[in-house]
């Protein structure tokens, strides 16, 4: 990993007005959890687990990772500043490692507190049953897998956002719902599987279709493969002056 690129990437996100969008994404589940606690609930634990699954895992987590993952290196490629990190005697794997580490750190900094806080608010007054821990670990694993995939997309294509969106909302959102065989290729399903195996709530209707260890291995495999391919892709990356 290259420390200078790591620090630069943190700077690219910190202190920018547009990063307020990320702050907003992190605050939404917390506000929703407060609203949720105002209502009446038959089974507060199950409903909180569903809340975390529906809002954090299926929306906030992929959206935050999509912004951060595709712009960590992608925005430099798009505006042409990538030349300043590519024209350096720095191994390509060190560039990807720094971008990946910084993206994971930033995404986790937004999504993990949102998960913990909204989970604790939702479960206030009832036993935790490992729900918060389960979703926190699941979300953290999801951050690694999603950012790795989105960084790969940003070096492999100029349409990373489009493909990322289609993956999250059409593949994971529609197709995986219809054809359960595709669950092995869904990061969302990995996260739900991990959360489900850690949380000890008996009735959960977020229907994790993957077992915990299986889901974790798949997520780790996807993240590692994506990072490896991103390095390979960057090694033969062509930089032109044309748009």
């Amino acid at each position, binding site marked *: 990993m290259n420390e200078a690129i790591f620090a630069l990437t943190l700077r690219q996100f910190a202190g920018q007005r547009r990063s307020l969008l990320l702050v907003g994404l992190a605050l939404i589940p917390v506000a929703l959890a407060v609203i949720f606690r105002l209502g009446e609930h038959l089974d507060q634990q199950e409903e909180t687990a569903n809340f975390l699954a529906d809002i954090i895992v299926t929306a906030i987590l992929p959206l935050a990772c999509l912004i951060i993952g595709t712009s960590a290196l992608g925005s430099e490629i798009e505006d042409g*500043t990538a*030349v300043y990190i*590519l024209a*350096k005697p*720095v191994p390509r794997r060190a560039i990807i490692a720094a971008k990946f580490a910084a993206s994971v750190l930033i995404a986790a900094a937004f999504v993990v507190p949102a998960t913990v806080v909204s989970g604790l608010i939702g479960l206030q007054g009832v036993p935790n049953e490992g729900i918060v821990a389960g979703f926190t670990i699941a979300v953290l694993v999801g951050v690694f897998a999603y950012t790795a995939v989105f960084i790969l997309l940003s070096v492999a294509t100029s349409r990373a956002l489009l493909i990322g969106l289609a993956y999250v909302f059409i593949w994971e959102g529609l197709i995986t719902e219809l054809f359960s065989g595709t669950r092995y290729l869904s990061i969302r399903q990995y996260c739900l599987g991990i959360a489900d195996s850690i949380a000890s709530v008996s009735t959960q209707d977020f229907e994790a279709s993957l077992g915990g260890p299986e889901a974790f291995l798949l997520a780790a495999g996807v993240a590692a493969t994506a990072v490896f391919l991103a390095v390979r892709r960057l090694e*033969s990356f062509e930089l*032109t002056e044309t748009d």
Partner: protein
Amino acid sequence: MTMAPETQPNGVASPPATIEAVNVSRWYGNVVAVNDVSFSLGPGITGLLGPNGAGKSTILHMAAGFLRPSEGTVRIDGEQAWQNPEMYANVGFVPEKEAVYSFLTGYQFVLLNAKLYGLSDPDGASRRAIRAVSMEAAQDRRLGGYSKGMKQRLKIAAAIVHDPQILLLDEPFNGTDPAQRLQMMDQLRRMADEGRTIVFSSHILDEVERLARNVLVIVAGRLVASGDFRAIRRLMTDRPHTFTVQSSDDRRLAVALVADESVFGVELGDEHLTVRTSQFADFTRAAPRIARAEGITIQELLPTDESLESVFSYLVKR
């Protein structure tokens, strides 16, 4: 050019830095951007000259290792440029694009580059590089507020911060005012005098002519001429050359010259003669001989169109 080993950071003489292209072609889809180009460059300043879209930028990008040649190889110091990030330790590249990290100050930007080059004293190297382009006064302001010319100078500082033997610049004088341009040219000349290999692209003849003795002329993706531009000019014997001559008796000299077979036109002006010839070398030998025979003293004999402009427009319009 001679090497100046004492200017190198480690104080050890190294062989001259070279850029070599062997039968290099590059195409995008079915558009050929560079077509079978070969050249070999050593220390000194080389101008890459050609109209917009001729392929200059593509050649520079291949030399900088950013583009894979579709055919042939580009070598930097004998090693292939493509997929060889280690070479950047000895190469600086100044892109044409204006985009910089606008949230960094000038100093922070150069320091970032110094760190990425892995220098042991990034702070000292950054301050030296900023001083070299006279940007100390603005170094603590954000790049977002810089003018085009200031950005350009700072980009050069970032590219020379590691004291490279090879410097590649893509249209470096775009957006600079005349004073900045002169200052940058001086800077590049100094670096060339220290034995560095400097290549810059430009479509403006004046810049190339003032800075580079060696030129590569690129037209429609092909290398149409290379070398000393005066020499190139002399090679084009099938095209008329024009000289202005001042002598003790212009009228009599005109009569004598027009009889020579190398001369096919003479115009008599108020202060000098304008002579047109088809054979450059023959005429430069014949003129003094004829003058001596007539007892006339030649005070001045100048080739008028010995400028890159005429070389260039001739090459481009063919």
